């Protein structure tokens, strides 16, 4: 009887989001664990070939990748954040597509962990290499499964990348 199914639904606790929390997607770039607010997160795809641009072989832009027919600019987060730069092929397993106010960028990454609900008070733990090198890009760090994750500030990240592209 369908009323029994309804009873099971009504018996479930409603999950109200806690105040002052944010949702972030945690991912790994090289050896560094980072996070971006979930709202910016568009998709994660299988690694696509990145076609390097002729006059942009160095710097943060790695090239262009075709994601569902759209050519997206691929940016090296390790270079933007001043992290240890290891060859892409050794860790490029996924392509993360982020969207900030209609501007889409693709970041090669290693792996992704699903949305994580982050409480305000968890931020600003002990600093790691990310926050020391480029404090402007990192809103804070938090602990997740015994790892230190740097929560990236999407606005400063995107605006810097776009300035670099211009």
């Amino acid at each position, binding site marked *: *009887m369908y*009323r*029994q199914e*309804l*009873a099971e*639904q*009504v*018996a*479930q*606790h*409603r999950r109200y989001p806690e105040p002052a929390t944010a949702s972030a997607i945690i991912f790994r770039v090289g050896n560094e664990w980072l996070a971006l607010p979930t709202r910016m997160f568009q998709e994660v795809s299988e690694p696509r070939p990145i076609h390097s641009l002729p006059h942009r072989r160095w710097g943060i832009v790695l090239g262009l990748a075709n994601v569902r027919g759209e050519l997206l600019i691929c940016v090296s987060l390790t270079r933007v954040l001043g992290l240890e730069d290891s060859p892409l092929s050794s860790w490029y397993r996924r392509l993360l597509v982020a969207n900030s106010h209609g501007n889409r960028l693709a970041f090669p990454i290693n792996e992704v962990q699903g949305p994580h609900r982050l409480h305000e008070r968890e931020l600003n733990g002990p600093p790691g290499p990310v926050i020391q090198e480029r404090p402007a890009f990192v809103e804070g760090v938090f602990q997740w499964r015994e790892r230190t994750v740097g929560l990236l500030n999407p606005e400063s990240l995107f605006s810097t990348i776009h300035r670099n592209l211009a």
Partner: protein
Amino acid sequence: MLFLLFQLGPDRYALEARRVVEVVPFAALKSLPQAPAGVAGILNYRGCAVPVVDLSELTLAKRVEERLTTRIIVVRHPDASGRARLLGFLAEHATETLQTDPSRFVEPGVKLGAAPFLGPLLMDANGPIQWVHEQHLLPEPMRQVIFAELCPIQI
């Protein structure tokens, strides 16, 4: 002020929305064979055992119709010692709300029987809507039974 509308038989009623905790579907209830008439059973509401009263049975001596628009209105209700408890009311057509000035509800000027929960009336295009003071809906002896004997569980 926001009101939740519902029906008992053909008549329309309004309950202040701020008194409502949640409106849930007419889910299966655990029945209480020894309960007085008007007590439909116990609802597992988000892990709490909430007694559910059949408003139609209480006021019209006729069980509520099991329609898709029949709902259980969960309200906060004080028990005998004034503690806030949860109580559910089965009501038909409990799917609409009305945003209106409370002063539009007017005393009917006719004594409509000894029903302390019935308040003033509002007339709209479809007829009268009567304000229900749900805190007076349960007759005192029933309130005692429900909270003290059937469901001695505090929120």
